[in-house]
């Protein structure tokens, strides 16, 4: 079985890692609730990237 989600044009920025794997015809194993992407409307709001955060 398969679910396909179609988002309207320019409505979502899908996570780059997912796009990059797909562009290599490589499926990504994911679980329910993992981040998929961010609304374009919210593109000005930068989500914290935990990997680049540092404690000061």
């Amino acid at each position, binding site marked *: *079985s*398969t*679910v*396909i*989600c*179609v*988002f*309207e*044009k320019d*409505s*979502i920025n*899908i*996570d780059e*890692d*997912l*796009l990059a*794997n*797909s*562009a*290599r*015809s*490589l*499926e*990504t*194993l*994911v*679980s*329910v*609730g*993992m*981040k*998929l*992407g*961010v*609304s374009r*409307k*919210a593109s000005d*709001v930068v*989500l914290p990237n935990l990997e680049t955060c540092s404690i000061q």
Partner: protein
Amino acid sequence: GNESSKESSSPFPESKGSSLSSRLKDRLHLHSIRRHLHLRHGSGGSGSSAVRKLLDADHFAGIALLTLLRAEMEFKDKWLACVSFGEQTFRTQISDHTDKPIWNSDKKLLLEKDGPHVARISVFETNKLSSNKLIGYCEINLLEFLTQGMNSDFEIIDLLDPSSSDLVVGKIYISCSVEDPIETETGFARRILSIVDYNQDGNLSFSEFSDLINAFGNQLAAEKREELFKAADKNGDGVVSMDELAALLTVQQEKEPIMTCCPVCGESLDVSDNLNNIIHLTLCFDEGTGNQVMTGGFLTDSQASYGWIFKLSEWAHYSSYDVGLKSGSSASHILVFDRRTKRLLEELIDGKIVLSMRAIYQSKMGLGLIDKGAKELLQSISEKQGRKMSSVESAKDIPNFVDFFKGQINLAEAKHPLEHYKTFNEFFVRELKPGARPIAFMERDDVAVCAADCRLMAFKSVDDSLRFWIKGRKFSIKGLLGQEVCSKAFVDGSLVIFRLAPQDYHRFHLPVSGTIEKFVDIPGCLYTVNPIAVNSKYCNVFTENKRVVSIISTEDFGKVAFVAIGATMVGSITFLKNEGDRVKKGEQFGYFSFGG
């Protein structure tokens, strides 16, 4: 053909002198020549140009090619004829409106000493007022028919009135001959080898050949396979032509049988009876491909459930069923990137499954199969499976399923212990404990989340999806969503594909927060959604399969189309939300279960 060389290589002894066998021998010999000429003069038929081989009636086995040529009836109408033989029935096309219908329809029938011999031919008139009304019939003992001396290429047989067998209502012209066994064997080998000729260049690599041997359930040692392959690869370039390999396999099959089970119906083959095996295989393949002029007698449910060509139940339980393709449709294994562990997983697909899927979804033969009723078959098998999986008896399969997918199903996450589930379907759609799947950025509705435990593909545009993944020539967003809900914004939009595997948690969740605007049911087929089918240019699983399109209206993403697509065996789609419901991302939205 060279008659003497064929006889010397045949495993079947010549007649030992019984009168029946002698007559049969003579009859076959004479008739084969006549039949050969007859076919070459273009009376229709299968296109086989085989010269017929003499057979021993005491150990008789052969493919009889029965041809319904034409009939002479007492009035004008549209006509069709049926042949019933053993447990099978086949029919011709419908003729023009005439009193002299012409069909020229062939049917290959298996004749065995202890099998059915009598074919019943029925002729029906068919029109709007009286559809398929039986007008006349006759019965022919094919074994006797083939032993009679005949002076022409065809026989004329009276058609009897079904209500009074004394009354003749017409005449039917038929022809019958026996196919040459060596030609049958070679032809079959050629056909089957073409399935593994993935790039259709007429040559086979060793790995392709090896896949085929595996699929036949043969544990032939690697050295033996290489030996066989090298014998055919005369110039040592690592590939052999199909014709060469077919010839070699035919000889080898007689010395040491390679095929031990029928790939179509799964029946075990008697290793001591090679010709019967080939005949069985040839007929099974013909049934599957619709290769013959006469239609019908398609695979039964039980046949469909056994054998690699169509072993659908097996697909649903194979651990390797779920893996994606390494590089398009030519690969036999699939790479999946585990996002959590950031590891690349390489999973081999069982050779049988690859062959099955390719045979059905990526070959012309498969297309023929799909055209000849596989859609209905998939639907019926899925419905049957649904009933089975919802029965109390099915609960006993749960431990085996869990054991089979050991390491891939985490029972500790399930909401209930194993004994709670009273049917297999209940277990299949099991809920997880609260919190088992943390939802990313739960407080932010502008972040979308994954809708299922699955293998995911994401594309910024449909063009990208067509470039990298979906190869069905007819795929389009409009085709996927249907006219009713499709909009320009969707057509140019982004696409995310969540593919669930049998061992996965089978509930799907909401990827975004918003309001359910509507549900649209789109009826369709139940093809597999495996990458092999998705990657096939012949197959359009996403736009032809049964599906439900829901539209979620959101503040942050505009409208989001959520399409739940049923697949082979798992074709039942249940939603847990209703139109107008306000929903939160991460909430359960519905589930897939076994059924049609």
